């Protein structure tokens, strides 16, 4: 029988950033402190954490944009350090900022992104309107430049960009932050559809507890660079004897989720 490998395998992952302060002294902050976890193929896991907790750093390491300082990370059986090109074929990402060439249209931005994954003009001519329709973006507006689109519309194009290349691992880094309630629900519904219809593994980094609970199989809390647990929501609540994830966060860290100390704000600058 063929052995099933986890979609994502991370062990003892470390990332430290250094910045010089005004006096020229170097300050070091650990963004990730010995993180270990595994995600099975087709699973959706949510990583909750405050600003500066290390969520984006984790996403960047998994998408080969940051080199870790210790530990290892594998996407399927490709090492993010030694086999980065293969990892890049498997992964795509949606970040909190819908980053595009603002003067270019949605269709042009999508075609540009697709070319990097080997999709020629003939393929994108058909695929771009199709994927835009799927994410709830009116395809007739695909010729409008990005700067004329609302934030919600831009985020839908960002989702389309990530899915256009058929990634087997989708990294969602606060994909609904800053969206109006309606756009937020539409994006969340689309994530559900992706899970239902595609064989994609999803890591959802968010600070929206309800979103994490609604979309994921397991939830983890990343606190100051440490992953405290990664378990099904019911197990988390049972473990701490609480009713909600907010209460679980408080029980695990001793702080409320909204309570960001100076250290968190300081860490955000680094991570």
């Amino acid at each position, binding site marked *: 029988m063929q052995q099933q490998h986890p979609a994502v395998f991370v062990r003892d992952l470390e990332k430290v950033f250094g910045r010089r302060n005004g006096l020229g002294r170097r300050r070091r902050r650990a963004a990730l402190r*010995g993180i270990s976890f595994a995600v099975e193929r087709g699973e959706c896991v949510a990583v909750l954490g405050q600003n500066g907790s290390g969520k984006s750093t984790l996403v960047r390491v998994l998408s080969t944009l*940051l080199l870790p300082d210790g530990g290892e990370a594998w996407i399927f059986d490709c090492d993010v350090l030694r*086999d980065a090109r293969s990892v*890049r074929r498997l992964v795509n990402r949606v970040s909190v900022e819908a*980053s595009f060439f603002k003067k*270019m249209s949605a269709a042009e931005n999508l075609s540009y992104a697709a070319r*990097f994954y080997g999709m020629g003009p003939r393929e994108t001519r058909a695929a771009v309107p199709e994927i835009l329709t799927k994410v709830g973006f009116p395809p007739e507006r695909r010729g409008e430049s990005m700067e004329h689109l609302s934030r919600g519309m831009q985020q839908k194009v960002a989702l389309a960009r990530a899915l256009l290349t058929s990634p087997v691992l989708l990294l969602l880094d606060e994909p609904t932050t800053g969206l109006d309630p309606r756009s937020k629900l539409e994006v969340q519904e689309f994530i559900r559809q992706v899970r239902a219809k595609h064989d994609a593994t999803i890591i959802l980094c968010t600070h929206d507890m309800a979103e994490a609970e609604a979309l994921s199989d397991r939830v983890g809390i990343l606190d100051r660079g440490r992953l405290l647990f990664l378990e099904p929501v019911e197990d988390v609540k049972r473990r701490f004897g609480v009713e909600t994830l907010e209460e679980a966060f408080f029980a695990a860290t001793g702080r409320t989720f909204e309570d960001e100390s100076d250290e968190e704000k300081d860490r955000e600058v680094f991570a």
Partner: protein
Amino acid sequence: MSSGVGSTEPPRSAGRGFAATGAGTAAVEMRHQLVGLFGIVERNVYLTKRYFLWDIAFMVWTIANTLTIVFIARAANLPPGRENTLATMLLVGATIWAFLGIIFEFMTETVAWERWEGTIEYTFMAPLSRLVHLFGQGAFAVLYGLIRATILFFAVAAFIGIHAPRANYGAALALLALASVSFIGVGIMASVLPLISPEKGAQLGFVAQGVMLVVSGVYYPVSVMPTWMQWIAKVSPATYALRGDRNEILTGAGLAWADVWPLLVIGAFSIPIGLLVFKTGERYAKRHGKLKRSG
């Protein structure tokens, strides 16, 4: 102590995963890379169309700036034949300055512009080889630069009334195209600067461009410079582009081997060295978190 969650053994058996099997043969991979290269050129065409009026404005500025240089020949009070020669010499220098400026601008913008738009992380996490990525940027810069340099040359020549009845424009363009390989290599080296210094890196590209042209005899023969500068001129591709293009336009000479072989040698070294420099810079940026958008 590590915070272990759901640990299993690392999946390091069984080859390179379905990324490699999906990519399949080298032919498929090569097709992907060529499509990626086309994508870079295509994106620049889109952006050029969007900023077309700005391009016209910059073209007017470049023509005006070149005129301020070429009018020096008029002020020199030389006999008409020698004035025409000096004006042509200055015009060739100014044209190549503008051409090289475009290449360096595009290459340094490989990083700087994408960082500004916030797309840099998406580009750097795509499975496109860095050589193809940078060469695509360079290829568009050369095409775009050649068009602008041609317009500049003929607009200024017509305005001043420069005569070049024997000019071999075909050879001049061919030499410039050959020199472009080296210019792209040096441009790749310069394009790493915004990776290392997001704030000031792009401006350092202009420094590199200026230094290269100063030692290459942009408006004067290399022989008038101090000996140590003449030695540096020997390894600058602009030296051979300037010398050759002047000969081809003033005397109608064909491609001279004395100009061609140094450009072939410099080109063969500059691209791999540029790539090595860029990859080192990219590694530094990924180690220190400098890819992330700033500002």
